[in-house]
């Protein structure tokens, strides 16, 4: 059994994460070989949705985890330590709405004094519109956010985009950029102290890449 358990995100960050772990000598072959299994005790890896990584790490179910800064910002209340910017998986958090002028969100704000915004990131979106002084009704959705403005449910969305392709294909354009997010290494607060040596050794290998 390895000294450390690492929570690895499935989805867009999986490839980059596994390459990274390979590069510092952690065997990821079992993970690559099976995309249904979740727990790989023999190599100290557990796999999950990116948005669950901070939850498991906070609880101590994993000592370390890799997830996007978007998740960490949305779940800023979690008690986890952020150790390293891993530099891959770069995405941008954006406000987007249906293409064409005028921007339906601006139009809603002008006519009604409020815009409706769909997002998977309700805390980030709420904080952003409050900070920029605009009244927004935030609608939390779990799946494809692009659908919400197309059906007329909302005037805008706040979502993470890598290339903008999905937005474009659905007739949406980026109106504002909030921040860029990359993959981060996080640690459980107890493990960070009790397994300091193992964690620092792993950090050293990551920094030396």
């Amino acid at each position, binding site marked *: 059994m390895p000294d450390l358990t690492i929570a690895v995100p499935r989805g867009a960050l999986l490839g980059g994460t596994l390459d990274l772990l390979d590069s510092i000598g952690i065997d990821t072959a079992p993970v690559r070989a099976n995309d249904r299994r979740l727990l790989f005790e023999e190599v100290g890896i557990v796999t999950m949705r990116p948005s669950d990584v901070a939850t498991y790490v906070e609880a101590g*179910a994993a000592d370390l985890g890799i997830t996007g800064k978007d998740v960490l910002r949305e779940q800023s209340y979690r008690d*986890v*330590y952020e150790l390293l910017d891993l530099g891959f998986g770069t995405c941008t958090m954006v406000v987007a709405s249906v293409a064409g002028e005028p921007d339906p969100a601006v139009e809603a704000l002008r006519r009604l004094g409020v815009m409706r915004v769909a997002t998977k990131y309700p805390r980030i979106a709420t904080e952003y519109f409050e900070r920029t002084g605009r009244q927004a009704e935030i609608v939390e959705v779990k799946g494809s956010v692009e659908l919400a403005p197309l059906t007329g449910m909302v005037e805008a969305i706040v979502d993470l985009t890598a290339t903008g392709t999905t937005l474009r294909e659905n007739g949406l354009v980026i109106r504002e950029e909030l921040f860029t997010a990359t993959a*981060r290494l996080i640690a459980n*607060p*107890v493990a960070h*102290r009790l397994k*300091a040596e193992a964690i620092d050794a792993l950090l050293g290998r990551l920094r030396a890449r």
Partner: protein
Amino acid sequence: MIHPIPSGTRDVLPDEMRELRAITRALLEVYEDEGYGELWTPTLEYEEVLRRASGAAEPAYRVFDDHGEVLALRSDMTVPIARVVASRYPTAEPPLRFCYTAHAYRAVGRHRGQTREFLQSGVELVGASAPEGTAEALRVMCRALDATGLRDYRIAVGDASLYPALLRGFELSEEATSRLMSELVSRDFVGLEREARALGLSAADTELLMGVPQLRGGPSVLDAVGGPGAEAVAGLRRVLELLDASVADRIIFDLGLSRGLGYYTGAVFDVLDPSLGTPLGGGGRYDDLLGRFGRPLPAVGFALAVDQLHLALAERDVARTSPDTATGERNA
């Protein structure tokens, strides 16, 4: 019929109650043997009085009484005991030693599995300054934990004044200081690195600001800190010199430990057990708090979360009876 109770609260039934009692009794026996007198304070206090301790955990539950006064449920026992010392022991010769087993109340996030009401067992040592007072608190805490039968715990020890002292040494603007402190308190080392680099200091100084809070380990980590941080580090060394090997061996220095922007002024500690993902207790020095209640005295204390301690002990018992199946079971 099932009648709900608020999330984050629970009923304790006789079997478990017996186990919890055994724990709190073992702790209390040690405190009393060390000369700490048990006390009891009201669960409800005037919110205004609790607020004198700005920086303490916010009282989360408030009620208006029938005279329109705002009452609040205490969020810890340190603040009520500071009030007791100022009001009931205004002239008593320090040091004063108090202990308690009491419920405290905190806000919970939705669907996060946190507790609103939790049982704390702890001590406050008032009027004993560093390093002797700090060493006594650590010694009593370890003796109490040993008495419950906990085996593999460690104490992370840091100093809340260390990083502020480092920053003062660089004469930074108030704004830069508060940005760095906020990254430190949330333990965002990526953010800390970004803020430290933005200061435009020499490479060595930048490295110091980024590196010191990431140092954890034995006494040798203290050697890495010089200059404006030297005083805080020397204080930790003096505490260590006063400790018996049995206590000293449990200590992991953690130079990034600050326990929030609360009332801590010097040494701070977290109790860590490998079976739990969160600290099961902690404490530290709060040399300014009593002054806010009108009796300026240095003080130090700790609080242990009895439910967490119970879980850690249960985990140990499982591990002892079936060594093959127990590893990490509760955490999985």
